[in-house]
């Protein structure tokens, strides 16, 4: 009850002072900030106890031990007993593309048609989404906004979660193309009364051939005088010249192996597998080919009755042990609102055998490296963006993931949301009555 009273006091104070306007993006960092005394989890596997972190104009200028004799600059935040983390990163996300799942008018995540490489997520990204802002109090500060559906669903962009509009939000524009590998199995449409069971997909080779043909045609077009203009093929140029990453969504073992053959035969350089449920079965091949994996949702049920009950919890570990670069994502039912649980996905992975700091890496530096934003994000390092947060405790554990401060590019962002506002309003209702 004591804790509760504290909240009431806090609430009243906040109400008196007027709430931080939620969703109002923070101004650029105007003065240096120093965080002292926290345990800094660098995101690259390393930890600094009693750390000193300083940042200025949005960039980290110092990170090291608080015992270091160096002048503290600007505003000093005493973070003794607290923990500092780089902002968490969610790859393969539809945040900002859909607001309410059941309301079609708010739904902008999947275009019709089969070949949509030219479709760009960024321009539909709703920087003012109430769902997006709810990521921040849990430490999820950056995301790769990705279209869904189709064989090639479109082009993603990477954004940060405190912006007035999509242009402000953009961290990396049009970073990758997303594609779904044909499925080796087909499933009955149970909602039409069909048996929901899986059967081998008779059209699998037809679909893979169509896909290969499409890439061949695109390549031929790009080597030609490009007349008349072909928008989808133009959009694919980046994956042939290596300036964009190709993300292949594929789950089953054979699909993964076939996708790797496809990558080689089309001479594709930057490829990442997404979801990759069976990746642990072909880990050696993935390692040999040096292909990173953005793994399926940790909090999911195993695919088959026979599977180990903890398979989705431990598959990241099985891959990391083989030396594969792994990041986590949230694709699936209610994925957007669920994305704020990304830190707990990493926590669950740690519970099932992976070192905590390595588990943290799956949602920080690994994700940044895979997305190609590790020059600025993903770890606490000198010269990198001051995109980080302070948590009262272990941010991978639900009980202690309690943010006191969060910064994106040095800007101290609001941790208020539509939800905290309602919490305070109704807590206040009962206290005042």
């Amino acid at each position, binding site marked *: 009850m004591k804790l509760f009273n504290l909240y009431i006091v806090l609430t009243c104070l906040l109400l008196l002072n007027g709430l931080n306007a939620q969703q109002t993006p923070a101004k650029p960092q105007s003065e240096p900030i120093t965080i002292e005394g926290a345990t800094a989890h660098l995101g690259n596997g390393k930890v600094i106890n009693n750390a000193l972190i300083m940042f200025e104009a949005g960039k980290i200028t110092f990170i090291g031990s608080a015992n270091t004799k160096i002048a503290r600059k600007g505003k000093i935040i005493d973070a003794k007993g607290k923990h500092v983390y780089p902002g968490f990163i969610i790859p393969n996300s539809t945040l900002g593309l859909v607001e309410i799942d059941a309301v079609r008018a708010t739904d902008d995540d999947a275009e019709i048609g089969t070949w949509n490489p030219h479709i760009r997520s960024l321009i539909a990204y709703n920087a003012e989404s109430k769902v997006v802002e709810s990521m921040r109090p849990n430490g999820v500060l950056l995301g790769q906004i990705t279209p869904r559906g189709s064989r090639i669903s479109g082009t993603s962009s990477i954004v940060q979660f405190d912006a007035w509009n999509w242009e402000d939000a953009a961290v990396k524009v049009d970073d990758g193309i997303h594609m779904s590998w044909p499925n080796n199995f087909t499933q009955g449409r149970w909602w039409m009364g069909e048996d929901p069971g899986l059967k081998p997909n008779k059209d699998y080779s037809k679909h893979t051939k169509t896909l290969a043909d499409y890439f061949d045609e695109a390549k031929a077009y790009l080597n030609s005088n490009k007349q008349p203009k072909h928008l989808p093929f133009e959009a694919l140029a980046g994956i042939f010249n290596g300036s964009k990453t190709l993300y292949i969504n594929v789950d089953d073992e*054979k699909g993964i192996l076939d996708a790797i053959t496809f990558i080689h035969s089309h001479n594709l350089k930057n490829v990442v597998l997404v979801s990759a449920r069976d990746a642990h079965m072909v880990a050696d091949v993935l390692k040999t080919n040096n292909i990173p994996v953005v793994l399926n949702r940790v909090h999911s049920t195993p695919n088959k009755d026979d599977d180990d*009950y903890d398979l989705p919890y431990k598959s990241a570990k099985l891959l990391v042990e083989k030396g594969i670069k792994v990041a986590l994502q949230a694709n699936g039912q209610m994925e957007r609102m669920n994305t704020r649980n990304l830190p707990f996905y990493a926590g669950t992975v740690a519970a099932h055998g992976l070192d905590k700091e390595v588990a943290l890496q799956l949602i920080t530096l690994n994700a940044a490296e895979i997305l190609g934003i590790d020059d600025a994000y993903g770890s606490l390092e000198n010269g990198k963006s001051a995109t980080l947060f302070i948590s009262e405790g272990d941010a991978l554990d639900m009980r202690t993931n309690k943010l006191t401060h969060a910064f994106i590019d040095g800007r101290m962002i609001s941790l208020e949301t539509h939800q*905290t506002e309602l919490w305070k309003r109704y807590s206040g209702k009962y206290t005042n009555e």
Partner: protein
Amino acid sequence: MTKTTLAVLMLFSALLINAQEYFPKNDGVKTTSSAPTAFINATIHVSHNQSIKSGTLLIKDGKVVASGTNVTVPKDAKIIDVKGKHIYPSFIDLYSSFGIDKPKRQPRNRGDKPQYDASRTGYYWNDHIMPEQHAMEQFKFDAKSANELLKAGFGVVNTHIHDGIHRGTGVLVALNINDGNDQRIINAKSAQHLSFTKSALSKQAYPTSIMGSIALLRQFYYDADWYAKGMSKTKDLSIEAYNANKNLVSIFEAGSKTNALRADKIGDLFNIQYIILGGGDEYERIPEIKATNAAFIIPVNFREAYDVENPFLTDALQLSDMKAWSQEPNNPKILEENGINFALTTHKLKSPEKFKSMLLKAIEYGLSKEKALEALTSMPAKLLGQASKIGSLNAGTYANFLITSGDIFDKKTKLYENWVQGEQHVILDMNQKDISGDYEFSLNGDTYKMTILGDAPKLKSKVATGNVTLGSQIKYADDWVHLSMTTKDTTTQDFIRVAALVKENITLQGKAILPNGTETTFLAKKETAEIDKSNSKTDKNKDVKVNYISKITYPNMAYGFETLPVQETLLFKNATVWTNEAEGILQNTDVLIKNGKIAKIGKNLSNSSAKVIDATGKHLTSGIIDEHSHIATSSVNESGHNSTAEVSIEDVIDDEDINIYRNLAGGVTSIQVLHGSANPIGGRSAIIKLKWGASADNYIYNNAPKFIKFALGENVKQSNWGDNSKSRFPQTRMGVEQVYIDYFTRAKAYDALKQSGKPYRKDIELETLAEILNKERFISCHSYVQSEINMLMKVAEQFNFTVNTFTHILEGYKVADKMAEHGAGGSTFSDWWAYKYEVNDAIPYNAAIMHNQGVTVAINSDDAEMSRRLNQETAKTVKYGGMSEEDAWKFITLNPAKLLHIDDRVGSIKIGKDADLVLWSDHPMSVYTKAEKTIIEGVTYFDIERDKAMRKAIAKEKRILINEMLKAKNKGEKTQAIKQKKKVHMHCDYVEYQIN
């Protein structure tokens, strides 16, 4: 001649053949012939357990006159010597659709509105109940199918219209091709037929689920009773038909062991013992199947081995399907061993042609031949009460019998003739000689060597002269052999033709026509009969042991138990114990459990008989209770009506859901399996303990508190069901209130009438609602926004009861004070929101705010994934809203126990309560913790070490079975593409569609 005239003429002549004594005759003089026929020197199997060597079967006018060794053959009898041959009563199939067209489903069009009312008047209110339907009215004798069945040994089938839940009456018909229906029909109303599946011919929505089908049947029987007493004011031809046929046996298409048990329970309620069409999986739950006391009709469609060469595809194959392949042929044997009465059927086989090989397989796996014959003759006859007419060759029965070359259950045995009602149907000419062998003959100075191979009529020939092998073809019928062959001159395409009669000692004698047209005599004699190798081969085959048979586990799938785990006396030493009682969290404490209860809590406990578990550094808690779950059930929503209080999840518990095991691995011990949220008044709940391995009924709590699901908001007003779903009341929240007021008003009136002692029509739905009014049943109401939450409390207050629980209750924080005052509990999600418009204001602080206002709060799952991490979910209330850890823990243990009225038994670690415990590796709400042991009533249902061993065993078993399947394919057995059963993860919103 037009086709029609031809058909008419044929019909006419058919009538003439079948002319009955009182029929006029215009094409000649009236003649009758009823000479008896005697089959002598036969081995006669008079019935499944009586056979006679060298006996005589005497038949006359389609009936058996006598069978035995001392039968006097009348002088006028036609005598057929069947020396060395066997005579059996012909087979009976009780489950057939012979002569009935399969009802065709009406195509569904886009834009079709759901149909809630019946399509007809004067009949029962539900189109799928059709006791007035008579198969006889649709029956058309189908000679082609009859021939197939005759070839498979069947003489009589019981056929019905395979459509609907109550399907009306069947007809028992003899497969007598020569006569007409006047002879064939043995019983035009042989049995009543039922199933759980809706009619393909009606689009009436109700029932949409199997629990709806169950409830519908129950209500129908009550209504029939009410009608029989003359209490109905209106005409109901369906009920009248049912009441008129009440004394017929009822055959229920269950199609699986699980549904067999469900059907039998309906019957028990109304003193009806169904004969049950099984699924071939009865062996998986034999004690329960036996306890039904039902007789079964058992299909023998043993599945083909799966194609397992491709390891990628094979990976999708699940252990349960592999085991089924290995075990299914065992089913008849196991039924026999357990004394369960059963008949066999061709149902589910692609063609009756497959029947014999399947039957032989069952025998190979241990079904006795006597039982097999019984299951095909006397048992089906007895089940339909027709043993005096069919199923044996006792005097007076129909002359329905088979003539075979030997033991009918031997692979080599040939079925020669199938006599039905004294009419002969020749399958194979029994006088046909065995002409296979080697021959030598001369033509035009050349010597030819010929080998005839195979069994008549499918013969092959090989002819050679000198070094030249000739192309040849052979045909053999009616003792004539026709052979054509090329000449030794390979440069030309000339042929020699031979026509020869088979004479004594297998001599082929006739003529040959040479390419130039000259005819010459042909004579070829079979060389000395070769030693029959086939006999020695059969003997050898008999010694071949049946393949590896996978062991049955409970449930019969991955992670099933070979032997069920037992209750133990356990002593946990030195644990951190979360009591949920005034003692709070106790450090370094021992807990003793005995006889399924918590016996002692304290320091330094000892017990000589207890198994000691070192819990140092570990945490011991009471088991997690999920107030809102949809696992372990075959259906969730009955969405066919806006109120479905008559349906119950208790009827449809699924004890083979792997999510049960996964929940145990997450520390869950008890759950409320709720009906979904498709309608304002949903179905009744099942409150169960996750006793993995038990059969469905044993999951349910003893004296389980009675609960029912209600629902508000978008789901019940069908907001997200598409534009076609706008015809069911209510479509607004305003309407939802009126649904409740209407039903409770009626329930009140119903209960008053019932209490008054006056006659009343038993109505399961209103009876259930009256229980709510009488505070015997409690509501768990799916709810989101504050207006509707408030509304339901006001409706309840108007009718003087309390809403027990609001589940989901995502805006509970807005009316927490009102809830507390009303006395309603709140069972909510930790952090779900934004999936529907009505959850826009859902906040993760909800649990904390409600708790702080004095509401009893639980954190629930509604989801098979989240339910196995409820400890993490409740931990989120520490983050959101600052709950103390001790109170947060109660959100998933003691509080749901209170909400479910089971807190006197579970929910805390208190002496005397059920020993439902979880041992955690770490703080139970830490993200890093794992459940190591999950115990229910002293039985360890999940053990992390045992789990590891099971994984290895599963992998090994799959390896063995894959090898067995490869062996089967190598032997030439047919195989099938792999399939993987998929269960759909069910949430509140999940509306199933019946697969017909």
